[in-house]
């Protein structure tokens, strides 16, 4: 029978909430729950073990018997032992409950219990008091209890953490065996440890179950791995190329100044009388409905719109139409849009795509330096694509392409980064990945960001100026 969580909101002592969880765990499925720290992975698992106060929604077919291993449960058991100790009023030195009693209290499957006691090397410790065990040893006790209680569902929250090598492989072998007839739900930080029997992956973010991925769906699985990489690794932006210096900008002047700007086709006016000044350091979000001219406005700035020559535009110290070339303008700008992605149909490597950002070209037509190559490789590291540096750009998934183009736009640390609906056309997972990368950029560089979208939910921390068309 499938375990189903429907619109479930569960509160944990007012500290944390799991919100509006909709989840079905079918018989025969083994799940891995992932997410960054504090995302609610453990809380989600704890709900199935009966923890938390249900505020809304229902669980149906909750398993009757759950074998639970988690740091919280471990702490709870240790605290309980300690209370027993405190409760002792007699003036004798309490030894506390011996390990074998702790195990026997729940072990209904004697065979499994004995086997694991031996395999995990607990035999010499059976008579020792539980509370005198080391953290790793109590962990083993927890594991034996969970595995030998004939559970309908095994919830293993970081089960491999803190185990020595021999115990780890014994446990892994045992779990592989058990997975044949017991449903497993596992939480792992290190995804390289994800066992083969896991069939589904859930991704938690801010207490919400944001993604569920069938592991046979390779594209979705890979995308999720990338997202986790961005969310869970301490990333910093690779440096600029020290040999690649832009002409100095006058700090007194705005980066961009549009005076009474207009774009017209035939008789149709897309916008007119638009005045806009972008000063260095002020991040902007540009919003507006479809057709309001957001992209046209941006391309006046980038020089991609031919009517930039009939408007009063000052960019990076150039008055447009005064004999400057567009390459003199583009060198100051990093740019990402769906249109760029459509145009970027060059069958070149991922590394070259990022290097092309130094030259503002689609494809790479210039000899690059070793330094630029190194920087590009560092970006690939940030994106979690280092092992794919020589793969072809056009063979990458849509979401991966978008991330690469953002890295391409940022590689030269441009004074102005223009992100024209960077999440457009992306599924939820890839949207999360793109936003995660942009947040990293906003937080850790000196680039001024100009961000266009019409999804209110795609707000980016650090952007506080708004222009609505």
């Amino acid at each position: 029978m499938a375990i189903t969580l429907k619109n479930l909101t569960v509160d944990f002592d007012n500290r944390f909430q799991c919100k509006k969880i909709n989840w079905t765990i079918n018989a025969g499925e083994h799940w891995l729950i992932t997410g960054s720290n504090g995302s609610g992975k453990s809380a989600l698992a704890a709900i199935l073990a009966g923890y938390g106060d249900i505020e809304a929604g229902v669980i149906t077919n909750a398993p009757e018997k759950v074998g639970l291993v988690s740091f919280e449960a471990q702490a709870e058991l240790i605290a309980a032992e300690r209370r027993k100790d405190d409760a002792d009023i007699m003036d004798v030195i309490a030894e506390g409950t011996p390990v074998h009693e702790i195990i026997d209290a729940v072990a209904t499957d004697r065979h499994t219990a004995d086997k694991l006691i031996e395999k995990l090397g607990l035999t010499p410790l059976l008579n020792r008091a539980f509370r005198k065990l080391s953290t790793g040893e109590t962990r083993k006790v927890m594991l034996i209890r969970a595995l030998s209680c004939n559970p309908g569902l095994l919830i293993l929250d970081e089960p491999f953490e803190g185990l020595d090598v021999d115990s780890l492989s014994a446990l892994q072998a045992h779990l592989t065996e058990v997975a044949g007839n017991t449903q497993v739900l596992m939480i792992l930080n290190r995804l390289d440890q994800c066992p083969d029997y896991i069939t589904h992956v859930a991704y938690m973010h801010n207490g919400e179950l944001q993604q569920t991925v069938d592991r046979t769906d390779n594209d979705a699985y890979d995308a999720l791995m990338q997202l986790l990489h961005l969310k869970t690794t301490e990333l910093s932006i690779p440096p600029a190329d020290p040999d690649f210096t832009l002409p100095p900008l006058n700090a007194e002047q705005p980066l961009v100044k549009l005076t009474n700007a207009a774009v017209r086709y035939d008789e149709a006016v897309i916008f007119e009388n638009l005045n806009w000044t972008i000063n260095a350091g002020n991040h902007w979000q540009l919003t507006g409905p479809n057709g309001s001219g957001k992209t046209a406005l941006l391309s006046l700035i980038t020089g991609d719109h031919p009517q930039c020559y009939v408007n009063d535009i000052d960019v990076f110290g150039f008055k447009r139409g005064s004999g400057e070339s567009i390459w003199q303008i583009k060198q100051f700008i990093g740019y990402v849009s769906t249109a760029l992605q459509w145009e970027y149909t060059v069958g070149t490597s991922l590394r070259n795509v990022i290097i092309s950002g130094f030259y503002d070209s689609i494809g790479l037509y210039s000899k690059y330096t070793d330094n630029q190559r190194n920087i590009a490789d560092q970006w690939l590291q940030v994106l979690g694509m280092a092992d794919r540096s020589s793969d072809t750009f056009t063979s990458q998934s849509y979401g991966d392409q978008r991330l690469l183009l953002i890295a391409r736009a940022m590689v030269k640390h441009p004074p102005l980064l223009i992100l024209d609906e960077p999440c457009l056309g992306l599924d939820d997972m890839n949207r999360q990945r793109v936003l995660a990368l942009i947040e990293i950029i906003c937080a850790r560089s000196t680039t001024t960001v100009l961000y266009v979208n019409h999804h209110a939910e795609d707000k980016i921390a650090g952007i506080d100026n708004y222009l609505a068309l």
Partner: protein
Amino acid sequence: MAENYFNSLSLREQLEQLGKCRFMHLNEFDDGVNALKGKKMVVIGCGAQGLNQGLNLRDSGLDVSYALRQAAIDEKRQSWKNASENGFTVGTYEDLIPTADVVLNLTPDKQHTAVVNAVMPLMKKGACLSYSHGFNIVEEGMKVRDDLTVIMVAPKCPGTEVRAEYVRGFGVPTLIAVHDDNDPNGEGLALAKAYAVGTGGHKAGVLMSSFIAEVKSDLMGEQTILCGMLQTGSLLCFDKMIEEGIDPGYASKLIQYGWETTTEALKYGGVTNMMDRLSNPAKIKAFELAEEMKDIMRPLYNKHQDDIMTGKFSQTMMADWANDDKELLGWRADTAETAFEKTPAGDVEISEQEYFDNGILMVAMVKAGVELAFETMTSAGIIADSAYYESLHETPLIANTIARKKLFEMNSTISDTAEYGCYLYNHACVPLLGDFMKGIKSDVIGAGLQLNDMTVDNARLIEVNEAIRNHPVEEIGGTLRGYMSDMKRIV
């Protein structure tokens, strides 16, 4: 009509002009657009070349405006819309030409005489007149005022491509030339180079040529391998497949996209690479078919080259111009009525490799056409670099237009001059290959060899490979493509 300029030269001068072609090095363009900086460039003709070159030149920091006839402005014709919507200054000939330092004549060949006659009296002393094709000067013998500099800058791609590559940060291969009779101030080369830089051409490679070499090789290439061979091949291969019982939708698709797919391999690694995409037995088969076709078609290629050299071709075509394009329009209508053109591509999946495996005859036709055109041009005194660009290099570009909308798209994209020559070739080549086609079965077009045993004779394979690789078009192609990749085009 003025005298044919080429025919007015001595044999010595003719050979000297035909033999002009040199691949220029990137460092020859170090001066950038400076020679044109601050000068007024006025474009005549706002079609695909006119508009897109203008956009590139302006984005390179140059001063570009468009001169249109009063009627085009008053009626707000497409050319007026193209120019004004893109934010260019638009004016009449009378307004703009007298102010121009450089006049860019980017109208179709057919209009050149009228345009140049209208513009010349308005041009200021010492200005420059630029062409993108030498037909008017070479074939029509246009005499330009002595004080004017006459240059040619000819991007070797359709106008949309000229723009798209520039936007990517690259360019398209470009041919430049200075008309020796009109270089009074000795500044023609500097202006042509700056113009090539302004359109981005210097990044993709510039050939320094002559008006004559450009015209005589361009006409030859477009009539034979580029457009003629692809049209003839499309019609013959389609009819053969139908005769052999291949599904019409499949046949139509195999041809429409097959030229593009197979010549893509040509673009990257010449005839050798295209042939290498075939299995060994198929390669030997294609080689043999190509050899046979080359023998059959050689007299036709020679005739085209001879008619181009003597001026007979241009004379014939100009007579049709004078007759309101009667022949051209009739032939164009006939093409629209062919079975290939009228059968839509079927909704079938054809993998990239299948285009080779089931299109052996098409590969053989491309090989035969490229090699013959190259051999014919070089034996007529055109040097190998020019011959390479006008044969092998441009084939994938034209094949690409067929992929878009079959022969209709090809013939509407190419110039009327190319189209006229293409029909001439086709009318002669279809019957010429008649007997040859009788022996063709679906194993080489449509169905593939379908061999269980891929065994080939070692000695024969070595012989065939050597013949393919040692052809002179492969030798010069290797060198020129090498220059291109030196420029780090990473495709």
